[in-house]
């Protein structure tokens, strides 16, 4: 067989329209989080939030082949996953602003953002909380005879939770269509993987569950999308789960209260030089998927979408104070 196409997997595999849409959503993630950060500073957002700036390729490339029927479970650093899976930034801002039009009607906030219609079963405030839930979603697909897969996003820190072990083991024993995507950004809060995790790479733990484990450059869109392509195909074929580890980095502190005492300025700057969006954009341009002007237009569109989203959120109504106990139980059943 002749296959002289040496272009990166993503360029070969996805249509230009798909690739442009991916770039668009990566910009959208970045601008959304900057907008959220700014809104937080202005006192419009309450609580804390965990920004994924610097990790956009991992979120977007992972979701590249997922349909709305496929599910994801996300974690506390989940804005990117949510947008990559197809959420509307207006409803996301509305949630962050605590509005009734938000995805969770103002009850959940950043740590519980979800969009069930696009298959996002929700962020999770509990590290590792989404792992068994993802396995359960995969069990549903298998039992209901659907070809849906579930992608479970979690961090390097989460890999030391018992939930990780139990979930990967069950998924493997039952051969379920789930892909465990570890976004290894080097730290769980302040604790480096070297200080928390007995093995250098999370994917090395896949062997303990007899499933494939792959470590990829999480800032390389194409590498991530290729690893997921393989894992998703395996899952859809009924061959069971995989573990994919995306090596990446968060530019911001862990949350709004981080003093960044556990890492150096140099380290942060070195990673900022590896901006996954700039890299993907350059790759698309290099392979003729779009030109500078086209890329700029996409970037501007993201800015506009975010602006519109913030306006929508601002204009939305807050929940009625009398409705504190609404949504605790199904309405009819009470």
């Amino acid at each position: 067989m002749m296959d002289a196409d040496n272009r990166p997997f993503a360029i070969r595999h996805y249509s230009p329209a798909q690739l442009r849409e991916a770039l668009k959503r990566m910009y959208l993630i970045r601008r959304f989080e900057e907008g959220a950060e700014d809104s937080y500073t202005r006192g419009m957002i309450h609580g804390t939030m965990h920004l994924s700036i610097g990790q956009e390729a991992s979120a977007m490339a992972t979701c590249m082949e997922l349909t709305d029927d496929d599910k994801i479970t996300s974690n506390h650093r989940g804005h990117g996953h949510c947008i990559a899976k197809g959420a509307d930034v207006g409803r996301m801002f509305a949630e962050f602003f605590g509005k009734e039009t938000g995805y969770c009607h103002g009850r959940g906030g950043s740590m519980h953002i979800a969009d069930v219609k696009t298959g996002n079963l929700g962020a999770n405030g509990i590290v590792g909380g989404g792992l068994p839930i993802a396995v359960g979603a995969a069990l549903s697909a298998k039992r209901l005879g659907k070809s849906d897969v579930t992608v479970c996003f979690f961090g390097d820190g989460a890999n030391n939770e018992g939930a990780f072990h139990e979930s990967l083991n069950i998924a493997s024993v039952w051969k379920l269509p789930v892909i465990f995507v570890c976004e290894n950004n080097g730290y769980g809060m302040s604790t480096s993987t070297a200080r928390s995790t007995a093995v250098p790479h999370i994917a090395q733990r896949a062997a303990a569950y007899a499933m494939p484990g792959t470590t990829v450059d999480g800032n390389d869109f194409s590498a991530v999308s290729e690893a997921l392509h393989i894992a998703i195909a395996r899952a859809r074929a009924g061959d069971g789960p995989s573990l994919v580890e995306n090596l990446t980095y968060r530019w911001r502190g862990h949350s709004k209260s981080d003093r960044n005492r556990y890492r150096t300025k140099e380290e942060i700057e070195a990673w900022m030089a590896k901006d996954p969006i700039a890299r993907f954009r350059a790759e698309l341009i290099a392979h003729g998927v779009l030109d500078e002007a086209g890329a700029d237009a996409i970037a501007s569109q993201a800015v506009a979408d975010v602006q519109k989203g913030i306006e929508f959120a601002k204009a939305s109504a807050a929940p009625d104070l009398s409705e504190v106990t609404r949504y605790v139980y199904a309405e009819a059943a009470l």
Partner: protein
Amino acid sequence: MNVQSNPVTASDTNARVLSYAEAIREAMAIAMQADPTVILMGEDIGVYGGAFQVTLDLIDRFGPERVMDTPISELGGAGVAVGAALTGLKPIFEFQFSDFAMLAMEQIVNQAAKLRYMLGGEAAVPVVFRMPSGSGTGAAAQHSQSIEAWFGHVPGLKVLQPSTPEDAKGMLLAALADPDPVMIFEHKLLYKTKGHVPEGSYLTPIGKALVRRTGSDLTIVAGSIMLHRALEAAEKLATDGINVEVIDLRSIRPIDRDTILTSVRKTGKLLVVYEGVKAYGVGAEISAMVAESDAFDYLDAPILRLGAADAPVPYNPDLERASVPQVDTIEAAARRLVRREV
């Protein structure tokens, strides 16, 4: 044991006699037959039939795809049930002993109970957790607890406690029909007890207590096995002319305020009996609920509670018996209350 039947279904006079375990099994079989999305998960519920033989032969009838032995992974297993419930299945998850649910509190309380709310009503988690519970089997401190009060404290959950085979079946069917997570505390000592159980499908209403014995001198609220001890104590008291009204609590969350308050308004005296540790137990809520209601003005004596001793459940059988309310301690407490020796 023989208690007054549920009026809701008492009309079914041809009801057969089944054990509590058989009634639960029948409920599962009916639900699985009717609804292919109902699955069972738990440790050793397949060929072993469950530690208490509740699932006995269901694997033969429904196969291993619907009667799933999980690895010994309570957090993972319960979480898989939560995720499955969120996406179209209706899992019944058996904790082998309710004590082991401590390993899964995260998934039960942080996830199952809160998902609908955190997602603003956009999600539902129709999972049922079966919780074999209680002392009296000589299994000591880690296999004998009654921790239902904890879950009563958790909005988003419903928490039931059947005392009869009839209710055990009807509550499980009601739990499956409910769109929210339901925990059912089954008492291990009740599994072999027998009672009339209607055929077919019926739902025991969630959140409804039941007056199992009417009386005018004193109200006893008790559930699960304590209902039976309370009824037995009531019979003894009756021979001395003390007429006890005995209420089967049945639902810990929600609580049936009306049934309890109505009775207390009538009798003016309340004794609450429960197997969990007395302090911060189920009876604390019932007492407090009455003490803050208009029924307070009808009380003519303190509200007494009988719960477990302030200790883990001991192994020695006599200590074990001494650590939880028994017929004689209930009887004695009731006498003290009626005589206002408190």
